């Protein structure tokens, strides 16, 4: 199979993720969409590694995973705390950081 | 060159003093005051040592220290003093102890409401003053443009806190209104000077680019640049030199301040306490005029000559405008601020008249203005704090109840109006003569200011000190011992500088000679050289 197809898939996944981040209000869903975008990037990295025949892309994919894992830890913790104090998981309720 | 880093130590001592003072526990604030005073006196001793070790007429920059700092950008930690720097370091080191003594109780008001256990306004006040001193000293000492720039900008921060945090509480408004005015003044001071500094930063980078381009390695070192130019390796294009010059000059003109960039000064001096106002006008602002003499003229001689006509006109406007506005003020400290603007006009006029008398006069003027304004304004501060008001109309007849206060205030006033026999006269006359020999019309117009100076000084004295005793003045106390210790030596110094300024001019004259040869200027010769003819006979 032509590896370029994987790139199309990655673009599709990224778009879905991006749309989800912008449209959905539930923090958990937004969070999942972010993960989706990250994974789309990973897919693209790996594909490029394959296309170019070196390992740079794969290494970057590992970095992304590490960062994503860290993000999950911090992000989920924030969401849980937020839910506890507001009894809501809607991101629109977290709009106090405006002037 | 000695191996002992005297210049570094002189700057480090007050900096260490600042840290030590800030670290004193909250309960021991009197100890903090004495500690800070001790450090400032130690700095004064070191400044004396610098003056003693310096050989007037010797090498241009002496006691030099030079170390690589940020090698990639050619930034060096380079210190060295010429005669003018020696004198100004002496002035700074001399004034700071008086500022501290005069402001001995200025932070006490803030001690009353103690929000938490670590609340230490007194320690902060004195530490900030020492910090300013350290930065001003190193700005006078540095011969590397970048190093200078850093401290030129950095001194704004402690000054900001001194103005905004420890303001004068003698305003006529409510507590809230005062706080608002104070923060307005402090922010205005900071923004105005930051703007000047930013433009200067662009010019500093421009200078680096030019040197990197022509010398192969970029440098900020003043001696290196001067050497390269003397050797013919460095030729700035006319346009580049002019733009970079303007960038530098703008920053210094804001700091000095020159009309029309002066409006921050009356606010800052009005809202700050009198000792802090002295620190602004007598110490920090001197860095601006000093830098004109050291950086503008030495780095950009051609551009300086090019810009001279405009600068002379602006300084002339400053002189007359400042004096006229001082006549129209109702607030004592704003009056002093406008008087200072007029005097800074004289200093800048003297620098750009490009004659030995003008520039020596200007350098001497910096010293005399520092001492005379300190004497005048610190005593005015004693007056203001007693009455709790800055408005001239709230005073009257003080002479009757507090003769010593009135007497010392009068001597300070007379110094401000340049009475012969007191320091400022010598420098003002030198500036006027130096200007006159090259630009007779400008010299004559500037001389009008001596009448205006008499007007604002004597009207202030008359309204506050003479006449029947006003309500609220009857029980005014005369000067205390601490206050006499502030006023007495300053007055003695004013008389000394007026009668025998030679020790100071000995330091200044060789430096001025070097600067004049940098800008390729010689004094205009008299039409008939009567002195030469006399000696020939």
């Amino acid at each position, binding site marked *: 199979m032509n590896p370029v197809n994987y790139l199309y898939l990655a673009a599709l996944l990224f778009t879905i993720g991006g749309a989800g*981040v*912008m449209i959905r209000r539930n923090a958990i869903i937004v969070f999942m969409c972010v993960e989706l975008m990250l994974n789309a990037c990973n897919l693209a990295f790996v594909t490029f590694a394959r296309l170019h025949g070196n390992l740079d892309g794969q290494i970057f994919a590992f970095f992304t995973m590490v960062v994503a894992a860290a993000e999950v830890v911090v992000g989920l913790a924030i969401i849980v705390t937020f839910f506890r104090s507001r009894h809501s998981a809607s*991101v*629109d309720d977290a*709009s106090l*950081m*405006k002037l | 060159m000695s191996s002992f880093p005297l210049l570094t130590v002189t700057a480090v001592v007050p900096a260490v003093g600042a840290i030590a003072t800030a670290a004193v526990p909250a309960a021991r604030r009197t100890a903090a005051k004495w500690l800070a005073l001790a450090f400032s006196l130690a700095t004064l001793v070191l400044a004396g040592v610098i003056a003693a070790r310096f050989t007037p007429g010797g090498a241009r920059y002496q006691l030099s220290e030079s170390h690589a700092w940020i090698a990639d950008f050619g930034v060096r930690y380079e210190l060295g003093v010429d005669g003018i720097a020696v004198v100004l370091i002496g002035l700074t080191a001399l004034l700071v102890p008086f500022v501290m003594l005069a402001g001995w109780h200025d932070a006490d008001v803030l001690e009353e409401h103690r929000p938490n256990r670590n609340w230490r306004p007194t320690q902060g006040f004195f530490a900030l003053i020492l910090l300013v001193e350290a930065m001003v000293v190193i700005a006078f000492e540095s011969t590397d443009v970048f190093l200078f720039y850093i401290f030129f900008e950095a001194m704004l921060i402690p000054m900001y806190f001194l103005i905004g945090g420890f303001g004068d509480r003698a305003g006529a408004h409510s507590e809230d209104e005062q706080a608002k005015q104070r923060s307005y003044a402090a922010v205005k001071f900071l923004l105005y000077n930051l703007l000047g500094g930013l433009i200067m930063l662009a010019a500093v980078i421009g200078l680096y680019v030019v040197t990197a381009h022509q010398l192969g390695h970029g440098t900020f070192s003043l001696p290196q640049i001067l050497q390269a130019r003397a050797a013919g390796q460095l030729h700035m294009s006319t346009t580049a030199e002019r733009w970079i010059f303007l960038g530098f000059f703008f920053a210094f003109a804001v700091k000095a301040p020159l*009309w*029309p960039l002066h*409006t921050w000064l009356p606010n800052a001096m009005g809202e700050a306490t009198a000792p802090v106002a002295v620190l602004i006008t007598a110490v920090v602002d001197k860095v601006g005029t000093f830098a004109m003499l050291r950086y503008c003229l030495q780095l950009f001689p051609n551009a300086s000559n090019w810009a001279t006509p405009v600068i002379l006109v602006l300084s002339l406007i400053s002189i007359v*405008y400042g004096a*006229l*506005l001082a*006549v*129209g*003020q109702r607030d004592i400290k704003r009056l002093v601020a406008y008087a200072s603007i007029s005097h800074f006009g004289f200093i800048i006029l003297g620098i750009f008249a490009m004659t030995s*008398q003008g520039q*020596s006069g200007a350098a001497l003027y910096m010293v005399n203005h520092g001492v005379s304004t300190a004497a005048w304004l610190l005593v005015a501060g004693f007056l203001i704090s007693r009455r709790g008001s800055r408005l001239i109309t709230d005073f009257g*007849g003080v002479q*009757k109840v507090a003769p010593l206060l009135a*007497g010392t205030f009068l001597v300070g006033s*007379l110094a401000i109006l340049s*009475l*012969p026999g007191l320091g400022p006269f*010598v420098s003002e*006359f*030198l500036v*006027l*003569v130096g200007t*006159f*020999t090259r630009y007779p019309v400008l*010299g*004559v117009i500037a*001389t009008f200011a*001596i*009448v205006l100076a*008499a007007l604002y000084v*004597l*009207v202030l*004295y008359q309204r506050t*000190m003479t*006449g*029947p*005793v006003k309500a609220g003045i009857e029980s005014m106390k005369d000067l205390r011992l601490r206050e006499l210790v502030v006023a007495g030596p300053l007055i003695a110094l004013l008389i000394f500088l007026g009668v*025998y*300024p*030679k020790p100071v*001019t000995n330091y200044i*004259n060789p430096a001025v*000679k070097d600067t004049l040869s940098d800008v390729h200027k010689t*004094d*205009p010769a*008299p*039409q*008939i*050289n*009567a*002195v*030469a003819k*006399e000696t020939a006979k």
Partner: protein
Amino acid sequence: MDHLIGALVGAPLLGAGILLTGGRRLDRTGHWIGCLLSAASFVIGALLFADMLGKSGSARTMTSHLFSWVPVAGFQANVSFQLDQLSMTFVLLITGVGTLIHIYSVGYMEQDENRRRFFGYLNLFLAAMLLLVLADNYLLLYMGWEGVGLASYLLIGFWQHKPSAATAAKKAFIVNRVGDMGLSIAIMVMFATFGSFSFGPVFSHATSASQAKLTVIGLLLLLGACGKSAQVPLQSWLGDAMEGPTPVSALIHAATMVTAGVYLITRSSAIFNAAPAAQLAVTVVGAVTLLFGAIVGCAKDDIKKALAGSTMSQIGYMILAAGLGPIGYVFAIMHLITHGFFKAGLFLGAGSVMHGMNDEVDMRKFGGLRKFMPVTYVTFGLAYLAIIGFPGLSGYWSKDKIIEAAFAKGGTDGWILGGVALLGAGITAFYMTRVMLMTFFGEKRWVPDADGHEPHPHEAPRTMTIPMIILAFGSVFAGGLFSLNSSFLHWLEPVTGHTEGHSPVSTVLIQAATLVVLALGLGLAWVQYGRQAVPAVAPRGSLLTRAARRDLLQDDFNHVALVKPGEYLTRGLVYLDHSVVDGVVNGTAASVGGLSGRMRRLQNGYVRSYAVSMLGGTAVLVAATLLMRGV
């Protein structure tokens, strides 16, 4: 002997230092310290005088270099003194009259709690005045010049609690500053022209400078002289200066300081001799002031202000004489010395009258005082006779010479100047007789003051009368002594130069004419104030009288022409500074603030909208990169 010159200045300076810093503990002895140091200066002066008499010719000029004051490249100012016959004359006048007035003040200021400070200021004045006449260069002279201005300021405003005194002091200083500006610019012109401002080099090369330069220097020096010597147009301060204690009026505003202008012009004779246009200006100023002061003196009811008008007028004579050039210098100085005696005597007499009359100065409330204060009456009377130029007394010798010299100038100028001087002599006789009659003759007119205290006129204590008696001797004999064998002329001639004038009319005729106008003035005054009773309230008077009471509208003119426009200018500038110069700054700040206020709306706090803007931004960046690639 030369090094003693410094001590001349040093002694009173030391006194001023001790008295002004000594504090309250010197209150009981301070005045005697002041007198002692003033007398010490006089003794040193006398010693130097004796020494000088022993020498001859150019050896009489002594110099003493103390230290280098302001050395900057070509600008070399030294603190060094030069004592020649001209300076010596002044030294003796200043220290002599000064010491007498110190002694007088011991009595006069007895009740004043600040007597120590008063003596400190007096000593300061002596030091500055001596510095002025002893300096060997113009810058040092300038220091003395402003120093006496300071002393005058301090002493006029000595009773600071009186607003009128404080205002008068300030006015005197500021008007003087205008003159000082002239002097300082003159020094600058000298430096630019000669490369020096020391007497020696400037005078010896004066003739090689261009006429225009010399005229400019001369006119600027004249401006300085006008300020210090209260000449038109800078005369307005002298009348107000009478707010000071009377000994001050006697010493500073009659005998010594106000004559500094005459000294300046005489000292600069080398410059003026080579600048005829400047000389003409000097004579015009002198002639105008001579009449101006005399007219003002006729209308004043305040005894001190009448005397102040007279001082102005007499100095007008001196300035006129000095403007005549070598035919007049000697007589200017001679009149200055005799005037020093009789005018100081008159003021001390006036002070004595005030002392006895609860500080009343209105002559309409005096009258018949000769019975109550015989010593004051006699000494004042002798000084009076001297000032009007009664034959044989001091004023006669010196004033007549000036009138003769004015005629001797020749041409139309000579006739006009001579005529003015002659007319002035007549008016002098009128107003001085008026003062004499209103004060010492006629019926007593005093009334109880506001508190109901009836004045009890009495003779002054001995510390006051002795100086008056000594000055009266001077008023009577000094002029004759100076004229004996033209001794004063020979004494000063080596310094100022002298040429005999050739009067178009015979000297005898001029002397006769002088006596006639004197008799006329005297007679007119007697008709008006001697024969008929003096009304206690001043009559309305003619237009001229009313103008003269207001000092010929000088203050009104200054107010309209200078003070008011100045006020409007400063007020306008304050507004301009606040609204335009600062307005631009604050306007910039405000517009930046407004812009950011609008930008702030973009921060709505919704994560989704931030995500959109991030995505949009990334899309723009990617598109831009691709487009750049494509190009």
